[in-house]
């Protein structure tokens, strides 16, 4: 594993790198095998990784390199085949279904490429749905305000654009004040301008709430907004790149 430091793009308007916080995730030798025998697919083969509180991490890598698999394991959607995966002192590799549900409910916010909103609920209700079951949520209106959707509270998903829907999804993810925000290609289905609006929302959350944020993307330009960029290939961490300053989202050009 190679760790490199970069100062490029740290020029004008750069944001100071987040102070390294306490360790949140500890990943060692994480392996995930799908299927068995002839058809077995090794999605992850020995990932070693630490993630810290408050940082914004971008996950890059070719298609099939295991990004989604890694994120799903971290988010408690899937359990590893072997290796260690710790969230603070919660052992995610050996957690029960109930523990995983509780973990997802209280600690993790998810944002997906296809929004996955509940079509029968309005923006406000989609967020409130989560705040109802969370321990220390912010009001749904406040969460939507954070993603600049204060004016669309009572619209149904079908009445909103893709970008707006994705921002509702972000509001839904952060309304519970999660410790971790996991985003799998959040801009994958969006055009550039809309994508930027979404990223700005994520970045703002990370900055203002100090949420550990992991973003999967295919767009290398987005790496500039991260504290650290983790490159995956063939189910392994190929190298980690540390940005000395984070570029503001508005300055990204792709």
């Amino acid at each position: 594993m190679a760790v490199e430091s970069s100062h490029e793009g740290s020029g004008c308007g750069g944001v100071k790198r987040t102070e390294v916080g306490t360790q949140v995730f500890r990943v060692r030798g994480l392996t995930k095998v799908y299927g068995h025998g002839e058809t077995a697919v090794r999605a992850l083969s020995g990932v070693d990784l630490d993630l810290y509180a408050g940082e914004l991490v971008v996950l890059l890598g070719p298609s099939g390199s295991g990004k989604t698999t890694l994120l799903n394991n971290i988010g408690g959607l899937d359990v590893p085949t072997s290796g260690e995966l710790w969230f603070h002192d919660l052992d995610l590799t050996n957690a029960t279904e109930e523990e995983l549900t509780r973990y997802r409910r209280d600690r993790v916010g998810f944002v997906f490429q296809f929004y996955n909103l509940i079509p029968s609920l309005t923006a406000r209700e989609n967020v409130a749905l989560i705040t109802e079951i969370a321990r220390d949520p912010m009001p749904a209106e406040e969460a939507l305000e954070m993603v600049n959707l204060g004016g669309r509270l009572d619209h149904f998903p079908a009445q909103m654009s893709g970008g707006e829907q994705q921002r509702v999804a972000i509001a839904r993810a952060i309304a519970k004040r999660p410790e971790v925000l996991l985003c799998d290609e959040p801009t994958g289905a969006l055009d550039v301008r809309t994508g930027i609006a979404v990223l700005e929302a994520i970045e703002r959350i990370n900055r203002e709430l100090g949420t550990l944020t992991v973003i999967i993307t295919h767009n290398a330009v987005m790496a500039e907004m991260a504290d650290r960029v983790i490159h995956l290939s063939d189910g392994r961490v190929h190298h980690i790149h540390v940005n000395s300053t984070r570029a503001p989202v508005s300055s990204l050009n792709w």
Partner: protein
Amino acid sequence: MISLLDIKVWRDLVRIKGQAGAVALVMACGVAMLVMARSLINSLETTRLEYYQTHHFADVFVQLKRAPMQLRERLMEIAGVAAVEAGLVFQVTIDLAGLDEPASGQARSVPDTGEPGLNRLYLRKGRWLSASGRHEVLVGEAFAEANQLEPGDQITILLNGRRQALKIVGIVLSPEFIFESRPGTALPDNRTYGIFWMRYTELASAFDMDGAFNFAALALSPGSNDRPVIAEVDRLLVAYGGRGAFGRGDHPSHIRVSDEIRVLTALSIGFPAVFLTVSALMSHAVLLRLVNLQREQIAILKAFGFGDVEIAWHYFKFALVITLAGITIGTVGGMVLGRWLVVLYHVFFRFPSLEFQLDAGALVMAVVVSAGAAVAGVFGAVRRAACLPPAEAMRPEPPTEYRPALVERTGIGRWLSHTFRIAVRNIERRPMQAVFTVAGLALATGILIIPSCFRDGVDHVMEFQWDVVQRQDLSVGLVEPGDKRVCNVFAQLPGVLHVEPFRAAFVRLSNGNRHRQLAIRGIPGGTLHDRVIDARYRQVVLPKGGLVFSAKLAEVLGARVGDQILVEALEGKRTVSFVPLVALAEDFSGVAAYMDMESLNRILLEGDVVTGATFSIDKAHWAEFLGSLKQVPRVSWVAIKNSLRESFRRTTARSIDLIQRIYMTFAIVVAFGVVYNNARISLAERARELATLRVVGFSRGEVGSILLTELVLLALPSVPFGLLLGTLFSTVIIGMVNTETVRLPLILTSHNYAFASLVVAAGSLVSAMVVLQKLKHLDLIAVLRAPE
């Protein structure tokens, strides 16, 4: 060659096997019912026809007092008559060694030489009577079986007051007694009533009837009508005490079988119609969902050049495979059940052999009707698939227009939980689907009402007949009408608490040009035993000089209270008089007419004559009473209520019970099928949404509660509709089933309603549990990928 599209049909079907299976099963129930009922009809009809032909069942029957044998020739000469069989028939009592109560029956003659020309017997066991036939007797199978009589056994019959020991030489069947029961009773009591055949000379000498006959059966030449023949026979026999001839249409055994066929016909239409409607609704739901989920696939197929027809055909194939499965299971099931029921029919109907005969027509009908139902069911979905423009289908489902549900707009929305809102809005967004589901559940509930309604109806009739109408413990018939003072003799028997005489008089009733021959029952005023009850369950006090009809008889004669009915006595002085119809009785046993005994005797111009008596007996002296009753020579028959009830419980009730159980099983299958299917569809349609909820931290139970809420919201309104539907079905089917011999009241109890609702509720619960189990396997990761 199997095309790839066919492989797709197969794989998709395997994926939705639960739902496809549920639809096929419901369809199978309908088909089984259809195949079973139509095949039984076929079996009964063809077997009866064959039996009638091979055993020369007569067309016209008549009883008379006494006519010389020479009169036979005169009967032969009537235009349209092909053959005449004249003989003797007498009511007799039987003393059976093993039987406490006196049994009774008919002794009938067979010619001294050769076989009877008409109504030939079928020898089941033993041998025919010897040439002289001295002290030999043939016994009808039902009685022999009920009393375990075998050839070689002895029985004692009271012939004209003389006890005669007879040797049973054979056990036989007769086309006249396919249904072997005491005339005028709807229920068989084969233990205490039997049919016996003896040589003519033997019987004639016992009753001093040498060279005479009191019974004739006539066969018509092909193509002749029985009406003019009956009229001519009646005219000819008036002088000989003819009691009015009747055709097959009034022959008790014949109409009993015809009634059964009518009942089966009603069932073969009613039940399958409901079941196939449900399965049509279900296939519609399953296919619509499939088409919705496969929008993109359809678009791609179209983009690659498949035509609308090919797409439509492709989706029709789903329905066809399901239908084929349903028909196969249903046919096999119907045949198995049919064979089973045929065995049961042996209890009621005595044929030389009653085999189950599959009705090929029923199979064709089943295929056509169920395929029709399936096609009708899926038509909308398939058309939708075929009409989907490729470009539109490529896009994910069009923005689904959700809005706050009606209940929320009324203002109570604030108190609704989010999961409740999801459920409510989903239902409201697809109103048609919700309607179909409610309809399916309502039908399932409705189907459950019918079998119980039948059972309750039968129970009610029995209770009514035995506890409300007939208060006596037993009835006794005299050999001949006798003086009222016979009751004094009866009252002296040990254990008798109360005796009442009655007078049965054989008459022809006419209202306009409608006629009916039956025995009017004359009952003494202030009777405690034989009560006549009206529709409001009050005892009808028989008015002097007026007739009371059972509702069915009034219907048959088209008579209304106030009408003058022509009463022609077919015995005694053969008086003719007009008597007003003054009231109607609630009588479930069929056609019946009642009169005050004195008034009846007055119009018959006979003194205080009785033909029998009813008894209340002190139970402590029961055996003693029966023993001494056997010694009274003038008694021709005895009907013991408890024995009848017991026999009913052992035979009829048990088979009715079995049939109810079959229907009930089917109904439960439907109820479960509908609920399960519905729950699976909502799960499949909503997998993405539900998985998302799981991902963001909802527990399995919380996600399940959304599905449950939806199910409950649909199940609740279906209950009242279902009860309403069930009431409707029951009314229609019981109406179709009601015949002259069988009249079932429409009894709908809260117990029945509660049971139907509970079964559907339980079905819903179990299906919901099964579906909730599936939530365990919800793929949380797959759902995050692009929509299917």
